[in-house]
């Protein structure tokens, strides 16, 4: 409630861009935020797992299903035309969101995980050979580890892991050392899901490209929080998940045109072909070559609406708002005796992972849930990282721009209650 006023900046700061947000109005855009849980108002602090959907997204899906839904790309009838236009308009929105050079470089997938698997299998399978190396980091999500391990098993390539410091930052010296004459692929998360660390991806890409090594960025945790420009980054591949950007479960894979054109298809089926005969099948152009079968048409349309919504607020505003929430959460939680924040990088997204002496994260999550506070507890699909920090799991509060200081205050009170209950 009062959080909107708290971040309001003085009118006199006219020179600086206006980065204030009307949080109360924004919260009204998200119907689910009005829910109560166990009789308490919901404080949804599990945005890194999946973000909530604004009415604009719900309406876009409902509207499309009610007025212009049919299968795309093959019907000549009116609904199919409308549906195809809406689907391709969503692709254009995803292109604009990432500032890709062409909509042909935007492949719709199920989620970021599928995007990485597609690149590992199709691109990796194409360029990697025995004893080649794939460089990742110790803070990757399992979805940016396992696809590469599968590829290593298939090709005889090796997975090389760059270490993470005690603060949860990438050790850039060690990272540089691990780039060798055998490195053929680098895959790094833009933002760590478990720690919130924002990685120096431009530096990484600079180092990699100096040796002509392609780079995939896992942007699942970056896309909801900051403006992304794949041309400026000059990354070879970028993936993100629609459901984390306030949309439905549709993922986006960006790939440089030359790469996508050289890559063999990932899956075979309808819509990815030009012509099929039992002797020879000709594949469709990019991006359709990678989109076998009927895609999640309504999901893509919903994603388009989500990206419009995020753009209408402005990623600069979102980033400023979330940095304020991060500062407040870090301050508030650090003041709790016995609580330790895991991941204290200088550059972080609005994620606070923590452990409490003598209380298992599962216990923390259970009590917080009773207080209406939704956080994630577990290893966050980053078991190697948990091992690195010597914890079985953490509790993680992850904020979105619609969260408030009041909700963070409730998180802190619920944590204090948890500590009292287990004392």
């Amino acid at each position, binding site marked *: 409630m009062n959080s909107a006023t708290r971040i309001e900046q003085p009118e006199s700061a006219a020179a600086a861009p206006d980065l204030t947000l009307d949080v109360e109005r924004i919260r009204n855009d998200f119907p689910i935020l009005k829910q109560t849980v*166990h009789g308490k108002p919901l404080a949804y602090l599990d945005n890194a797992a999946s973000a909530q959907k604004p009415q604009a997204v719900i309406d876009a899906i409902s509207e499309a299903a009610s007025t212009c839904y049919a299968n795309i790309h093959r019907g000549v009838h009116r609904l199919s035309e409308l549906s195809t236009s809406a689907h391709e308009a969503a692709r254009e929105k995803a292109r604009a969101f990432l500032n890709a050079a062409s909509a042909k470089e935007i492949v719709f997938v199920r989620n970021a995980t599928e995007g990485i698997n597609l690149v590992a299998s199709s691109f990796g399978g194409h360029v990697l050979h025995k004893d080649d190396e794939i460089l990742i980091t110790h803070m990757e999500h399992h979805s940016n580890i396992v696809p590469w391990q599968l590829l290593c098993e298939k090709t005889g390539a090796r997975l090389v892991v760059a270490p993470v410091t005690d603060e949860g930052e990438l050790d850039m010296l060690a990272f540089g050392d691990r780039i060798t004459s055998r490195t053929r692929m680098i895959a790094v998360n833009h933002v760590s899901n478990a720690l919130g660390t924002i990685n120096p991806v431009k530096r990484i890409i600079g180092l990699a490209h100096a040796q002509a090594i392609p780079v995939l960025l896992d942007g699942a945790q970056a896309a909801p929080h900051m403006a992304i420009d794949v041309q400026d980054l000059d990354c070879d591949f970028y993936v993100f998940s629609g459901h984390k950007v306030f949309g439905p479960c549709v993922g986006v894979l960006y790939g440089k045109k030359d790469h996508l054109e050289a890559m063999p298809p990932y899956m075979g089926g309808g819509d990815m072909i030009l012509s099929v005969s039992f002797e020879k099948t000709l594949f469709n152009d990019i991006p359709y070559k990678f989109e076998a079968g009927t895609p999640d048409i309504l999901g893509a349309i919903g994603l388009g609406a989500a990206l419009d919504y995020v753009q209408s607020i402005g990623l600069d505003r979102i980033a400023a708002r979330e940095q304020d929430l991060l500062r407040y959460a870090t301050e508030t939680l650090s003041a709790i005796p016995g609580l330790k924040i895991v991941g204290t990088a200088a550059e972080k997204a609005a994620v606070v992972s923590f452990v409490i002496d003598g*209380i*298992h*994260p*599962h*216990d923390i*999550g*259970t*009590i917080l849930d*009773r207080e209406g506070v939704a956080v994630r*507890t*577990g*290893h966050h699909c980053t078991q190697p990282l948990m091992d690195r920090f010597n914890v*079985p*799991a953490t509790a993680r509060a992850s904020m979105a721009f619609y969260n408030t200081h009041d909700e963070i205050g409730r998180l802190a009170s619920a944590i204090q*209650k948890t500590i009292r*209950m*287990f004392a």
Partner: protein
Amino acid sequence: MTTNKLDHLYETFEILDDWEERYRVIIDLGRHLPPMDEALKTEETKVRGCLSQVWMVTRVSDDDPVRYEIIADSDAHIVKGLIAILLMAYSGKTLDEIRSVDIDAVFEKLGLDQHLSPNRRNGFYSMVERIRTLSAVT
């Protein structure tokens, strides 16, 4: 005797209308769970879960060879408490008795049914599944 313990717990929960008090009871039950020999906590006895770890061993009772004993532990306090409730329902019983336990009804009566939902993905849920499998195949 085991049923009495459960009945006693039902009564306690009825008196306590505050969830916080009930969870305090669960935490306390966990604290009084008979300790599990560390040597029994192996990869084989570990029941995998995403959130917390559970170790479980079932064995035939020394006193009465038709009855089964369950020895279990967890690294999370609340899960230990839930294990204690599980033992009230299952431990020291014959396979027929184990089969006839309606564990969902027990947890529902205690208002703890959320802990039996598969999406909790914890070792505790897997433990219940394991007991169910054990009684089904044997």
